[in-house]
């Protein structure tokens, strides 16, 4: 059952042609009651697989595809998304992202999301798996303007722990910065070394292989939402929530991405009617 993984490790996609340099640019705009994909361009194999309207024409769902299904050492990928005034876009991925083992070069993914006043972007990719010996660099920048809103979900598994693999070497670094009108409201820079102390330490992942964050950035977070979030706990693993100015945040560490995601969906459901006017519709691709 590990064959597909192992073949990817031995022959990372893109290796025949050298590392990937890929870029995807997406621009969503509101036209009348509809959110349309007004701009879509790509260089290299990074693309938008589909734009769907499962919730009606107001909300555009997009599925972002990294063609070799993962990022290998030396790859440089970048995704730029703009969501225009009043538009509502939801972006996800067709499956787990992968950061492959590297022989020495770093793999990079840069994500930049700009959200105009009155707009909402829900950035809910499926989990990422950091293979043992990966050298991953993830940079996420979210720029909100005026009363724009953002929902971001991140779930990372260190090592293919389902098949017993641990993250023993390499390192994974992720930097996220969310700003509103140019001033940061959330900033985190993580660095997890393979085999390093943070994987086991109580201040870090305490031996759990999965780490997740759900963040909602809106101009105001009402007390009732914070209370609702506090009333839901993950069925497995360790999770807690807090509220910062303009930010509601949930953290998870556990052994199962599914448990983390299930918890995050409950939390997302508790706030979505307020930020989007409608309940959560879980992307169907998550179930395939």
């Amino acid at each position, binding site marked *: 059952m590990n064959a597909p993984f192992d073949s990817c490790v031995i022959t990372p996609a893109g290796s025949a042609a050298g590392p990937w340099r890929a870029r995807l640019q997406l621009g969503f705009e509101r036209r009348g009651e509809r959110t349309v994909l007004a701009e879509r361009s790509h260089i290299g194999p990074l693309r938008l697989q589909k734009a769907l309207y499962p919730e009606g024409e107001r909300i555009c769902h997009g599925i972002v595809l990294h063609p070799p299904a993962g990022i290998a050492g030396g790859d440089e990928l970048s995704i730029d998304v703009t969501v225009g005034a009043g538009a509502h876009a939801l972006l996800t991925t067709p499956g787990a992202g992968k950061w492959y083992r590297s022989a020495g070069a770093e793999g990079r993914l840069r994500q930049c999301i700009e959200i105009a006043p009155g707009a909402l972007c829900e950035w809910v990719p499926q989990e990422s798996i950091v293979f043992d010996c990966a050298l991953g660099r993830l940079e996420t920048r979210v720029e909100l303007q005026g009363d724009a809103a953002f929902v971001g979900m991140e779930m990372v598994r260190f090592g293919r722990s389902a098949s017993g693999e641990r993250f023993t070497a390499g390192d994974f*670094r*992720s930097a996220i*910065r*969310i700003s509103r009108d140019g*001033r*940061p*409201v*959330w*900033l*985190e*820079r*993580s*660095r*997890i070394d393979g085999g390093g*102390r*943070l994987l086991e*330490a*109580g*201040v*870090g*992942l*305490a031996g759990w292989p999965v*780490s997740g964050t759900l963040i909602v950035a809106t101009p105001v977070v009402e007390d009732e939402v914070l209370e609702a979030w*506090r009333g839901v706990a993950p069925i497995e693993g*360790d*999770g*807690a*929530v*807090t*509220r*910062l*100015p303009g930010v509601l*945040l949930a*953290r998870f*560490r556990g052994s199962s991405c599914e448990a983390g995601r299930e918890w995050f969906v409950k939390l997302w459901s508790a706030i979505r009617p307020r930020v989007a006017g409608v309940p959560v519709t879980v992307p169907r691709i998550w179930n395939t």
Partner: protein
Amino acid sequence: MLALVRLLQLASPALPVGAYTYSQGLEWLVESGEIKTEADVAEWIGDLLEFGVGSFEAPLLAALIGAWQRDDTIELARLNDDFLASRETAELRAETVQMGYSLVRLLSDLPGFAELAAGRERLLAIDEPAFPTAWAAAAAAWRIPGEMAVPAYLWAWLENQVMAAVKTVPLGQSAGQRLLAALGSRVPAVTERALALPEADWHNFTPGLALACSRHETQYTRLFRS
């Protein structure tokens, strides 16, 4: 010599900024039984020293001192904003804002120190000065170099954390001093690394701290404010 005396004043637990009212999650960890012994305390605080305070707050403090020395107000505002945005939970953010506010007020109450005048004015122009921002202003005004200021700041944090553990676990005073001696011996290496760390390599990922502090927000009986 005067710089050292000023530094001792700045790093002293007698500095009236209320540091002793914050446990940074320790109170919850003790309540929940995750921290029970002197060894548990040493491990928790040592890891935070390494992966939290030492790898983000300390290099940021050194950068702040540099910005105060150059009177670079744009950089000061940027670093202050970044530090506030990096606070993991409501209580950790409230802590640095309250301590920053108290320190700015204190510096304003020291009119005899002409060297503080410029920094005071700049500090009052920042809408929410974080504690390290205000602390760095005083360090720069008193001409305390970064290589002395950073270990002193780390020491003050360490002392406060150990005292919170002594109160909550509880531990004896000798255990507290043993912890300070052991953890203190790690400060030089942490400082050296912090001073050499380029900003792109600063990191502050300590989800265990964030979880503990988030839970402290709803802890039933609390002596500490974080």
